[in-house]
């Protein structure tokens, strides 16, 4: 992100090494959505947020959640003149006049305080009373117990409640010393800058205002690629057991728009990855997802949403998780035979063995009959697998006790139950497939569901052939 680093606003207020996450911090200023910083002690989280509020001229409050006393936050309650309600005695520390609130050490507060903070962060309310002036809600925490590295020891930093963590639009890790470049390390280690007034001169406010205007324009249009990216990420992440709530998916779209607005409206792949990473809140409760999984999800979603023509179709095809949907897509709108070949070869390379078998066995006969559906290489690839299913020659082997009654092949007994409920050609197709799997020592978790999915593929092809006027239909 060299260009962004060159334009770094945060350096001007003495925050060094934050270039990578700067677009996210600015995006949080654009949307005014809650922001959570996670980082080790002494990495400048509190300094950053306090400095931002200072240069932007906000009425700011900084609370330490581990020491928080709610009377200090809301003020001392007293009855109004006619004793019909309660008022709070306001002090410079009370929250009512605040525009920005920083809840520091949020992972160290008691659960009952977390609940009160929840309404402040989520609804801008305290004790059920609205705080209309509050625009920015920020929080900071050390890595929680479950997510600490070998050399870390932050006793009392507990995983955040998932509902609370989910309310932070952005959750970002701030950089530690060892990931900073040498020039940033030099700037940080220089004590002469301490206490010196910033020379920022309104640049951050200007940039945020410009981004806000761009954000409003983008929001009106809401380009389809943003939606496709967010939805694909959600599907893939959920498939990888990293749950994104529906609210979170919507938040991801919003975050993407805001970060793109900060970048002057230019779509940038690296920023999309950064935004996706910052939108996954799991680190707040100690379950940070594997970086390689997030990268892989981003790659697939990016290609599916931003690619054009053949690549776009291919990505959409490969993102279909159900075999029958893949088959349906191949038959319905595959652009050409070469793309069909690519779809087949990439599918076979990525599917599990039992899925490969079902996919090839279902598609091979139709690819032979309907010229142009799949190219010759694709037909050969399907045929390599299908030929072993059309004629199964092999051996079943299993262990049984020397004494007692002879026992059947355990897997054969399982699939026999599935076959017993089938009849006619459906049964014959399923038998071939099951015997192929058994002789190749491929076990099925759920034979019923597997056969059902395979039969769905057959039904899709049958309907399509009928529509094409083929005698096979």
């Amino acid at each position: 992100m060299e260009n962004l680093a060159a334009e770094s606003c945060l350096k001007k207020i003495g925050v060094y090494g934050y270039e990578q996450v700067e677009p996210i911090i600015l995006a949080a200023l654009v949307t005014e959505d809650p922001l959570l910083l996670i980082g080790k002690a002494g990495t400048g989280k509190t300094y950053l947020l306090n400095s931002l509020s200072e240069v932007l001229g906000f009425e700011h409050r900084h609370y330490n959640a581990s020491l928080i006393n709610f009377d200090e936050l809301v003020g001392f309650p007293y009855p109004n003149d006619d004793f019909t309600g309660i008022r709070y005695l306001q002090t410079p520390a009370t929250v009512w006049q605040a525009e920005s609130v920083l809840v520091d050490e949020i992972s160290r507060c008691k659960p009952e305080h977390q609940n009160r903070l929840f309404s402040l962060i989520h609804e801008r309310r305290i004790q059920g009373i609205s705080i209309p002036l509050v625009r920015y809600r920020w929080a900071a925490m050390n890595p929680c117990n479950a997510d600490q590295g070998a050399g870390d020891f932050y006793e009392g930093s507990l995983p955040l409640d998932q509902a609370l963590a989910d309310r932070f639009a952005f959750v970002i890790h701030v950089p530690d010393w060892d990931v900073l470049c040498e020039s940033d390390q030099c700037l940080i280690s220089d004590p002469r800058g301490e206490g010196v007034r910033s020379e920022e001169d309104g640049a951050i406010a200007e940039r945020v205002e410009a981004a806000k205007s761009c954000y409003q324009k983008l929001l009106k249009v809401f380009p389809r690629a943003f939606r496709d990216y967010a939805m694909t990420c959600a599907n893939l992440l959920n498939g990888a057991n990293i749950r994104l709530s529906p609210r979170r998916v919507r938040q991801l779209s919003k975050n993407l728009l805001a970060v793109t607005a900060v970048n002057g409206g230019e779509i940038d792949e690296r920023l999309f990855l950064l935004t996706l990473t910052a939108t996954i809140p799991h680190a707040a409760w100690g379950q940070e997802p594997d970086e390689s999984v997030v990268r892989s999800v981003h790659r697939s979603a990016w290609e599916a949403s931003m690619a054009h023509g053949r690549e776009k179709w291919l990505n959409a095809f490969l993102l279909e998780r159900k075999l029958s949907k893949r088959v349906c897509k191949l038959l319905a709108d595959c652009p050409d035979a070469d793309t069909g070949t690519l779809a087949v070869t990439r599918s076979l390379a990525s599917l599990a063995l039992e899925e490969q078998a079902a996919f090839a066995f279902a598609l091979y006969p139709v690819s032979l009959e309907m010229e142009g559906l799949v190219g010759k290489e694709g037909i050969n690839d399907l045929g390599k697998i299908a030929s072993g299913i059309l004629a199964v020659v092999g051996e079943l082997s299993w262990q049984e006790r020397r004494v007692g009654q002879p026992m059947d092949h355990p897997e054969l007994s399982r699939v026999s139950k599935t076959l017993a409920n089938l009849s006619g050609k459906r049964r014959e197709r399923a038998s071939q497939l099951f015997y192929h799997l058994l002789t190749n020592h491929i076990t099925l978790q759920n034979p019923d569901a597997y056969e059902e999915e395979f039969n769905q593929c057959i039904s899709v092809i049958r309907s399509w052939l009928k529509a094409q006027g083929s005698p096979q239909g």
Partner: protein
Amino acid sequence: MYFRDPLLAEGAGLPARVAGAAIDSLRLWDWLIDLSGLSGAVKGLDRFFNSGGPMTRTRKEPVNRSLLDNVQLQINWPCRMVVGLKFPKGVSPVPYVEGLLGEAGYETPSGAVTAQSDLPDSIHYCHPVDLGRSKLSQISPDSHAEFLRFALILGLCGPNYYDRNRPVIWTEGRLTRKVGLYLPRGFYED
């Protein structure tokens, strides 16, 4: 952990009967201890000692199921022809069929395909068939014209399907294959 043979499970942990004869448990135990050095020599004696694991055996069942030319099944891809060539001893297949091609007056195999009207028109699934020498002799044509026709079909067969519209590729591997051509039909019917 070990498993005892069920024969040893009767009584108080000691065998009650051996070879059908009722023998006093303690006497049998003494007898087994005496014979323990001969366990290799006495058939079945090792079963009375801890063998260290469950006694299992591997069972095997051959499987041979095919949708190809199988009239017993509802899905049956009929075999249209079986193709195989028996080359004269000592000849190399590719030059041999190229010689036949020239003899028939064709310059290229694709020219021969265009001219031949008796090659299968539609795409067929092709599958290797197991032919003995005698069967191969029966199906391998005697006439040069028919031999060339078979060679063209084998050249049009890829790894698993025959297509008249693909280029003829003659290699020794392809020309010495024995394949059946099957017509895919009725696969998707209910």
